[in-house]
């Protein structure tokens, strides 16, 4: 009878990382369904393509790094990176743009920094930003126009052919400027009422986009309810956008209105699925609030006064830079202490 020797606690009830990641994937499905319904097959094809590439490049780099391949592949984190890229890239982004984004995300941003848990930057957003800067045309002209699956959207075969075609052609009939892009460029010369005439805005806020964002919001609320993420980052993120919009952009004839900021572009996907990546986010509650709010402020600033129509990737990456700093100065107050010990230990050992 050899008794097992082990350090306490002997009981465990953890949700393993693999299951946490699986929940993230499942929670993103409503958003993916909405994307498919309102923008055609592009996102779904991208998601499948990106996940496959992510797993393949993760396996290859793990092999190169002499790490156990299946042990790490099973944690589902590479799949989540692929998923996030697939959800955020333009529907008709050429296959090689997606490939470069995914490979740089997995190989450079994640594994070359030490793999899971060691990457200071959100891998998916590194891939996205790299693609956006390197291939600005491919990344801005390939957004599908809102056309429902039951009317107007190209079929699976046509979408596949477009994405995987050798020539770099954009089929104008299927694409359209995104609402944020359209508003930003037209408002300089038009009134709000005139700008909103464009079909990309539709009848509600931003045709199709509003449903996609609401679907991601629903998925995000599921994640909070499942205690996979906490409310701090998304709430601070959205609150910052609201505050910035009310403070600076209340005139719709000059700036995009609040509802467009909240329900167009990648706002909800960014707030609940991207900014909440635990590895590259701040850790304490207070830190998460600062981190989320920082992203929200940056998103508004770049969308309004920057060169890019959307700004989730840049904002997240910029705040990733600030995470060690935030973490240093936002430790919680420990039980039995008068106040939190901020910063690093002083030389005197205090």
């Amino acid at each position, binding site marked *: *009878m050899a*008794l*097992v*020797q*082990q*350090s*306490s*606690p*002997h*009981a*465990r*009830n*953890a*949700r*393993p*990382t693999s*299951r*946490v990641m699986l929940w993230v994937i499942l929670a993103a499905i409503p958003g993916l369904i909405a994307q498919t319904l309102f923008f055609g097959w592009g996102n779904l094809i991208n998601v499948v393509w990106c996940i496959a590439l992510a797993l393949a490049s993760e396996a290859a780099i793990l092999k190169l790094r002499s790490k156990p391949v299946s*042990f790490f592949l099973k*944690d589902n*984190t590479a799949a989540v990176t692929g998923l996030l890229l697939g959800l955020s890239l333009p529907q008709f982004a050429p296959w090689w743009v997606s490939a470069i984004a995914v490979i740089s995300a997995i190989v450079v941003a994640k594994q070359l920094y030490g*793999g*899971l*848990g*060691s990457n200071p930057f959100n891998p998916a957003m590194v891939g996205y930003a790299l693609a956006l800067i390197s291939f600005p045309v491919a990344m801005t002209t390939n957004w599908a126009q809102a056309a429902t699956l039951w009317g107007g959207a190209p079929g699976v075969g046509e979408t596949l052919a477009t994405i995987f075609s050798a020539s770099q052609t954009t089929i104008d009939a299927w694409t359209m400027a995104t609402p944020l892009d359209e508003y930003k460029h037209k408002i300089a010369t038009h009134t709000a009422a005139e700008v909103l005439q464009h079909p990309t805005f539709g009848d509600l806020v931003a045709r199709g986009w509003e449903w996609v964002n609401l679907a991601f919001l629903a998925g995000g609320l599921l994640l909070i309810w499942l*205690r996979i993420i*906490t409310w701090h980052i998304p709430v601070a993120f959205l609150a910052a956008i609201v505050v910035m919009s009310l403070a600076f952009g209340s005139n719709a004839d000059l700036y995009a209105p609040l509802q467009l900021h909240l329900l167009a572009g990648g706002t909800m996907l960014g707030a609940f699925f991207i900014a909440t990546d*635990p*590895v590259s*986010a701040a*850790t*304490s509650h207070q830190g998460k609030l600062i981190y989320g709010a920082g992203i929200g402020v940056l998103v508004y600033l770049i969308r309004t006064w920057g060169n890019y129509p959307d700004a989730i990737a840049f904002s997240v990456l910029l705040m990733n830079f600030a995470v060690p700093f935030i*973490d240093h100065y936002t*430790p*919680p*107050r*420990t*039980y*039995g*202490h008068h106040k939190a*010990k901020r910063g*690093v*230990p002083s030389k005197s*050992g205090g």
Partner: protein
Amino acid sequence: MTQLWDFSGGVHPSENKHQSTGRPIRRAGIPERLVLPLQQHIGEPAEVIVEVGERVLKGQKIADVTTGMGVPVHASTSGVIEAIELRPVPHPSGMSDWCVVLKPDGEDQWCQLEPIGDYHKLDREAVLDLIREAGIAGMGGAGFPTDIKLRPPRDRKVETLILNGAECEPYITADDMTMREHAAEVVNGLKVMAWILRPSRCVVGIEDNKPEAIAAMRKAVQGTQIEIAVIPTKYPSGGEKQLVQILTGLEVPSGGIPADIGVMCQNVGTAMAVSRAVFEGKPLISRIVTVTGKAVREPGNFEILVGTPASYLLESGGLQKSQLNRLVLGGPMMGYTLTTDTIPLVKTSNCIIAATADELPAPPPEQPCIRCSQCAEACPMELLPQQLFWYSKASEFEKAEHLNLFDCIECGACSYVCPSSIPLVQYYRYAKDEIRKQRAEQLKSDHARERFEARQARLEREQQEKELRRKERAKAAAEAQAQKQTEAEQSVAQGEATDERAAKAALVQQALERKKAKAAQTAEPAPAAAPAVEQPDIETLEKQLMQAETKLSTMQGMLEEARAQQADNVEKLERAVAKNHDRVERAREALAEARGQMADNTSDASSE
């Protein structure tokens, strides 16, 4: 309704308490041998006051602590002291310690008991002494001697006395069953402690998953001022700091004790032990222990004699050895695994879990931390477990300490929720140990430095004293010289030596004479060299002798010098001189022998 506060974090592990509450508390009986460790709690080990072979009665004191903190140990039943030896004791390391081995005689004969009728008539100090003499130490955790705990510092008035009946750890039901079946005794013990401390509030905290215990305690406190506070079930509500927070809303200061904020916690079992000591005169020789886990057929609670081997108790619970995978002493969150079932159960043992392999499975392999902060959400001390882990793993102990590593109560909530199955608590224990080790080494090196500096100061002082003496000598010599000078001058003046030159010449003459005498002395062995031409053997011997003599004289010179300077190597030099002296003697003997054999012209050399 008592006002309650919440503590941050906490987890809800499967309770697994119903298995051991189905049966009333059973008596485990008297095992074949009782093993009584001399140290059953923090403080000093007790010293044995009986001898091997001596017969002792139940309740008789067999060991006591004379100096330092500690309480006595009593014989749990009547019998004969069989041995006083090293035996495995309950400890996470599986170490052995000194134990008294008692062979029960089966008569279970009590010693003379002296119960107090009415403790109110006694002095409080007398009651505290009685509690000490009864060997009572906290029965919930580390086992702090109860009488010392009941004497808080004078400036720390205890306003709130808390009886900890939370029992938040899964599986354990010892306190639950004690309250169900011995509520009156528990309350009586609490009353004694309240009488000693005179708090303004006295409250029993019980988790709401123990309705029977709550009902029994409510009945027992009727007509008293004691409150029963039903607190929400959440691990670790029974942690002292957490319970204080739940019941008072106050936090125990870091590094302090509850008495610092006017609070004291006592355990249910301790209260019962106090009651038995005061009202029945019985020392702490038995306690209630939960035996549970899927590897025992009849889990439940047993009243055991202190010193009962775990194997005996497991047998009473119906252990199925083939099922047993791990033995845990304590609960599944904070208990530790045992290497053997031969260890005795002591005053602080509250539960033993005989777990099967699927009941408490081995954790999956550790994965990288994904900074998910689940651990921080679970931490009841509001620490940053993932940063502590990071720094502990990287051996950056200073940073870990800065993030309040030492406030960690090792409750295991962080490890319990970690999705990467990182054994966080183990990392913290490692870091704490390393820091303690470093501190101890620092202390040691500080001492060493102090010693070194003291020695340096002493040597310097001696050097100075020596210098001073040397100067005094030189001064004396100079004075003597001056004296001589004046004497000479006086004699000149008196005309005894009219010619200064003549006096000087006389001095030179004397010096020459001394030199001559010396030369004659050194030249003495020279004639011996003559036969050496004929006898090369003797020549060699003589050469050796000369060498030895030269060496000896050098050595003696060095020795004298060393003695004058009070140097450290005097002893060494003395030994060397003695050795060389022997060598000279031997050389001379050898030479003499050689010359004796030659039979001519050897008397001079051998006479030396």
